[in-house]
């Protein structure tokens, strides 16, 4: 918008440069060939729609949304468990804004708040500690979600709580890891993906090495991408160049932010406080081993799952819900049978429609008006 410039942001939104990159992308497309690239991260989905990036792409290049939306992949049962905790005596639940409208089987956090639960929105997990200090007679439980981008912050917050000797703070840990989700995607037989636009901010923590197997063993080019529109266009250009040159590598487009080796301190903090769960249920992807984190025994006093006997009921998705297929990139949002009819932002059935960076919400809220052509799920 017409405001004072934001450094490291505005330069990467320049329209004239975009035309140049778009021309380069055009040239790299082989006549008659269609390309499908999966953008894994919900933040990328959001950026693509917010800036109208698809308007710069030729007909031949299609983007598929992947499972990198940590809100979208939380099964209803875990939302119910969180609300159950929030409704316990003396609990103040803190949560990121993203979660507040996600529907559990008995309603969302906002609806639980309307019924009297003390649920407060925070920007940072550290803010939960302040609330805990200010309310010594209550227990603050932080609803922790996110991929590896966010996990170190929760871990550091637990370490801070331990250092301060806080005894009224706990975490309900729903952190998930990206690699198992990618493996689940790659295992889908019907998927036609030519390459991946990799999660830039997750990579600041885990680095670029973990994606090697995708490029080397599965033969899919992988470009770790930044979040500004030019970053995404450049990443697409780099993917096409790899395909054109017959290469299949992991490349880092987001070099100004992502170090190849990741952030050792962040990984260290995660490792000190947490360990992988044997298995975890992902919405739409089923149970995946070693795909989520839990607090170590050493930090049990901060673990909501040990402090409370949560119901842990498995709640299956409503029969009409096709979030799973959207998350795996099998169908586009508009191809879901309840998209826009029974499932809308006001009356969401699934998380893809509620989460601000869920594919369905992004498409409904931003991208619904298509000036041009029609795309079918089966083309790839």
């Amino acid at each position, binding site marked *: 918008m017409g405001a*004072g410039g934001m450094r490291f942001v505005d330069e990467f939104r320049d329209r004239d440069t975009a035309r140049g990159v778009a021309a380069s992308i055009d040239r790299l497309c082989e006549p008659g060939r269609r390309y499908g690239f999966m953008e894994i991260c919900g933040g990328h989905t959001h950026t693509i729609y917010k800036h*109208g*990036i698809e308007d710069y792409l030729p007909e031949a290049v299609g983007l598929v949304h992947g499972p990198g939306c940590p809100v979208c992949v939380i099964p209803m049962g875990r939302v119910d468990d969180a609300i159950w905790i929030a409704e316990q005596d003396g609990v103040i639940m803190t949560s990121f*804004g993203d979660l507040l409208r996600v529907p559990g089987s008995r309603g969302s956090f906002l609806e639980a708040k309307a019924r009297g639960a003390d649920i407060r929105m925070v920007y940072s997990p550290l*803010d939960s500690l302040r609330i805990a200090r200010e309310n010594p007679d209550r227990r603050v439980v932080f609803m922790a979600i996110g991929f590896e981008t966010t996990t170190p912050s929760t871990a550091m917050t637990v370490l801070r709580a331990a250092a301060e000797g806080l005894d009224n703070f706990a975490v309900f840990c729903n952190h998930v890891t990206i690699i198992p989700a990618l493996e689940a995607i790659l295992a889908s037989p019907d998927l036609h993906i030519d390459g991946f636009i990799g999660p830039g901010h997750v990579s600041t923590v885990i680095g670029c090495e973990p994606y090697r197997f995708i490029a080397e063993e599965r033969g899919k080019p992988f470009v770790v991408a930044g979040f500004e529109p030019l970053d995404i266009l450049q990443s697409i250009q780099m993917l096409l160049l790899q395909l054109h040159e017959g290469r299949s590598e992991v490349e880092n487009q987001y070099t100004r932010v992502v170090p190849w080796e990741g952030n050792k301190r962040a990984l260290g903090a995660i490792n000190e406080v947490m360990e992988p769960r044997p298995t975890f249920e992902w919405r739409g992807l089923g149970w995946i081993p070693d795909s989520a984190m839990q607090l170590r025994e050493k930090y049990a006093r901060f673990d909501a799952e040990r402090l409370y006997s949560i119901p842990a009921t498995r709640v299956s998705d409503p029969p009409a819900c096709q979030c799973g297929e959207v998350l795996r990139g099998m169908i586009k949002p508009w191809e879901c049978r309840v998209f*826009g009819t029974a499932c809308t*932002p006001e009356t969401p059935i699934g998380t893809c429609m509620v989460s601000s*960076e869920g594919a369905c919400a992004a498409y409904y809220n*931003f991208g619904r008006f298509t000036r041009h052509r*029609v795309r079918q799920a089966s083309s790839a």
Partner: protein
Amino acid sequence: MTQRTEKEVLERIERIRRRPPRVTDERITLAHGAGGKATHTLIEALFLDAFRNPLLEPLEDQAVFTIGGARLAFTTDTYVVSPLFFPGGDIGDLAVNGTVNDLAVSGARPLYLSAGFVLEEGFPVADLRRITASMAAAAQRADVQIVTGDTKVVQRGKADACFVNTAGVGVLERPVTLSAKAARPGDAVIVSGPVGDHGITIMLARGELGIESDLRSDTAPLTELVGLLLDAAPRTRFIRDATRGGVATICNELAEASQVAVVLEEEAIPVRPEVRGASEILGIDPLYVACEGRFVAVVAGDEAEPAVAALRTHPEGERAAVIGRIADDPPGLVLVNTGFGGMRIVDMLVGDPLPRIC
């Protein structure tokens, strides 16, 4: 399953969106108060349904009627802001300016206000004095008088410190009829100043986000600015002050009522750097953030330049700008040409824009 095309799905969605709204929630949630879709559904399906009459039907921010030869505008608004005191003003300023503005944007000269207070037991009298002083000063600045009022006190815990309701009446001396239904293709959309100042100021003032800035609320009376606009652009179709729900919500209401498309230019929308910075940190869009001293107006295409020039002569209108145009297609939708060169829809949000981490 038949392969529906994307086009068919989008058409079906549009048909469903045109259906009359129904309230299915059992309990009121905060979304109902945010000014977005939930609020609109509540108003249309519950209140309008119960009170239905020709003056209410247009669902403008004020009712306009003629009595004994005088055209009068009548409006009301309730103020529940928390915190009560914030950089740039307090609930008293909002209570006066908000109602004055709802009258002014109909083209009326605001005359008289009522002020009703609901006070929580234990509320400091010193705070009440501050608020009342603000209201007196705001009324003087806006050239209105507070001529009647009411006070109620409720038990501790039954109200959040202090709620204020103001109702106002004004007289329409200009022969204008402004309406959300009046926009036509070729018209220009104008905003009177930078967007989002008030909403971000309040969000930051609540303290929970831990973000600081030098931002102040933009609360101000718009009567003079509206006067300048109508003098320079007598064929103005519509003016509304951008309160909760922000500029995006007004544009959606307009697109829906007039059955036109509103096409905005992202780069033309004035936003202060601090509003932009805070919005980027929180992941919210300034287009949805409340203002309290800004209006959105739709003027005839050829009157756009003189309108903006006139507004810019006033200190509150220094950054007035044309931010978009009215088109005929697709009807009922608001689109933005992004700074990057692409396009996206600006739909009405369900509730408040919530900060996100993803």
